[in-house]
């Protein structure tokens, strides 16, 4: 049943896209240019994020300092942080009138322009560097302390230590991390929409959007969607193969005691950690400061949009959580498969597909919010599944026989065994889904309703009309709401637990 639902949700729109693309001719030279740019920016983003993450993760792995745990926790924040908010923060530093350009002007240097490839890379590194650091940190934690003790005992020079102990771990992990970031950046939309654009910096995802909203050329949108589907499916498959078999879950942060690293290495590590912290924290602080000033004087439109966004987020959660639950319930391994399909289907591709499906029956513009809810639910599905599936398996392993022997079946088993014990994971998964859906600027931009907007779309409109202060206030509100929803759901799961 649930598998059928997911298939309809995902494969239906994809089928519609491919079917429509079939009769719409070949991609144009501009489309191929967009494809090349998409792959290039994704590859560069992956290499930069991963390359920078190695020294940062290494520094975090071998240093102990006050606030280390907080910094690692903070590295998780960009995952929930809405893209548009991060961009607003980055623009406050690197934008035309940002801190950096003001500083440069003070000392008489020329302004730099953040728009274009380097702006896209900057934003992608902002989102993916923390992810790469967290994944690599797990790799370092996985190296037994005994290895380092032995290396110290043998007085191994730093080069040899890297080559013999750390390099094998990196060689095992880095390809998977590269592939994951590459796949994620292929379908990045909001970043490219705001920081890219123009023929020189257009991705396939953005070209779909343009085909829709400027040309209203459904055939072209479908062809581009098919193209996008092809490359992302390829990259997702690659990521799955390269990252297979290695746990990406949390670990116990056991202190790894190390004896290497003289004063110079220590200074280098400190510099890497400080730079990363500044890079991640400054945009957030700027959003807080700028938004705080205008939060109470924002136009009514922003508050209305916030209400709409909350409804969309709750709608997505209401779809994704039961669906993930139903998918995870049968004792078989569907998690990877679903992850693959949803990774391959970017929001705009799914949105295009749904548009094509609905159009013969109704005017899709009247159902934008519902479509957005559903697409966002589909995007969050793999994360919700990953949150609840291992827990569900553990419940069956630990208490399945006891429940069987007591004759607890059907609703009794659900009510008295599974739901109470799964509540924590369900809360966490629902929180993730709500926050991701709340902050998403994707499919809603494809066919924006004229009379209503989600909060991210409203912020985008305010930025477009240079109402920077109102946009900052909206960004702050959006950040509060995203994290608020996440913690509210997460809390609901925890309170029940004893």
């Amino acid at each position, binding site marked *: 049943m649930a598998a059928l639902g997911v298939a309809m949700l995902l494969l239906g729109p994809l089928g519609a896209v491919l079917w429509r693309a079939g009769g719409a001719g070949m991609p144009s030279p501009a489309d191929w240019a967009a494809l090349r740019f998409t792959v290039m920016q994704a590859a560069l983003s992956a290499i930069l994020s991963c390359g920078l993450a190695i020294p940062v993760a290494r520094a975090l792995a071998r240093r102990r300092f006050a606030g280390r745990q907080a910094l690692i926790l903070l590295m998780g924040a960009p995952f929930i942080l809405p893209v548009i908010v991060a961009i607003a923060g980055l623009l406050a530093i690197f934008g035309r009138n940002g801190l950096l350009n003001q500083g440069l002007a003070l000392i008489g240097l020329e302004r730099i322009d953040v728009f274009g490839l380097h702006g896209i890379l900057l934003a992608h590194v902002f989102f993916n560097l923390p992810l790469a650091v967290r994944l690599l940190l797990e790799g370092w934690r996985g190296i037994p302390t005994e290895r380092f003790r032995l290396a110290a005992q043998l007085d191994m020079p730093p080069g040899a230590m890297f080559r013999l102990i750390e390099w094998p771990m990196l060689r095992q992990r880095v390809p998977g991390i590269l592939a994951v970031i590459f796949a994620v950046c292929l379908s990045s939309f909001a970043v490219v929409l705001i920081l890219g654009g123009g023929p020189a910096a257009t991705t396939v995802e953005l070209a779909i959007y343009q085909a829709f909203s400027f040309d209203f050329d459904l055939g072209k949108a479908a062809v581009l969607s098919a193209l996008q589907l092809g490359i992302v499916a390829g990259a997702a498959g690659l990521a799955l193969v390269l990252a297979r078999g290695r746990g990406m879950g949390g670990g116990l942060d056991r202190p790894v005691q190390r004896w290497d690293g003289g004063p110079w290495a220590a200074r280098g590590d400190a510099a890497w950690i400080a730079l990363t912290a500044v890079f991640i924290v400054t945009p957030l602080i700027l959003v807080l400061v700028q938004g705080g000033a205008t939060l109470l004087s924002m136009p009514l439109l922003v508050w209305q949009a916030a209400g709409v966004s909350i409804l969309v987020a709750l709608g997505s959660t209401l779809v994704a959580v039961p669906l993930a639950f139903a998918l995870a319930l049968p004792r078989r391994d569907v998690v990877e498969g679903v992850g693959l399909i949803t990774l391959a289907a970017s929001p705009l591709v799914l949105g295009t597909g749904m548009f094509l499906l609905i159009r013969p029956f109704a005017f899709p513009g009247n159902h934008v919010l519902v479509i957005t809810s559903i697409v966002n639910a589909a995007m969050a599905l793999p994360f919700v599944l990953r949150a609840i599936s291992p827990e569900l398996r553990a419940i069956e392993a630990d*208490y399945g026989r*006891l429940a*069987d022997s*007591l004759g*607890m079946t059907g*609703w009794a088993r659900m009510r*008295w065994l599974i739901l109470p*014990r799964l509540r924590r994971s369900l809360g966490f998964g629902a929180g993730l889904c709500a926050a991701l859906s709340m902050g998403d600027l994707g499919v809603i931009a494809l066919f924006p309703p004229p009379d209503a907007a989600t909060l991210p779309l409203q912020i985008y409109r305010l930025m477009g009309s240079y109402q920077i202060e109102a946009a900052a206030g909206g960004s702050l509100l959006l950040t509060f709401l995203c994290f608020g929803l996440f913690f509210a759901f997460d809390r609901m799961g925890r309170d029940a637990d*004893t």
Partner: protein
Amino acid sequence: MLTLDHLRLEQGAFSLTANWTLAAGETLALIGPSGAGKSTLLAGIAGFLEPVAGRVLWQDRDLTGIAPGQRPVAMLFQDANLFPHLDVARNVGLGLRPDLRLTREDRAKVGEALDRVGLGGFQTRKPGSLSGGQQSRAALARALVMRRPVLMLDEPFSALGPAMRTEMLDLVRDVIGETGASLVMVTHDPGDAARIADRISVVADGVAAEPAPTRALLDNPPEALRDYLG
């Protein structure tokens, strides 16, 4: 009467056969080295493992294909006998109603069972706040309210100290004495067997042997038991 009729159980490459009967109200200890198949035999009787050949019968009724919860068997596992998220009263109440729709009468029964095992007034406590011995008592209280004609123990008291274990075994003996249930228990310790079991089945080399009277068997152990006892 519990009948193992040419029963053959397999788990991977491991196989175990048994062909004997246990009278109603009789107490039996399964003794033998670890990995010999004692727990496998319990799983076969309880319905967690379908036989590849032969049958398990209760009062001449074939139990093949009957779900564990529908069999005339109450079982205490080696660990995790209580749901940590439910209080003691509900954990015991599950033995009466798996959907926990407990009537006032049911709740009274739960209270009596808790009194019987020395846990009067522990209704609202969560398992996490109980000692190991108290947890065993709560699980036993549930087996008590289930009123199933066969009680099976898969070493549920093995984590307890010797004095506590003896106390629990005495409690089990008293309880089944009152309910008239048969007992099948797995043990490593001939002392435990001597304390409670009418007969012993030695489980070794892929066979659960025909049960023999406890005293006679321990006084004059067959070779498999001699090897095990050392």
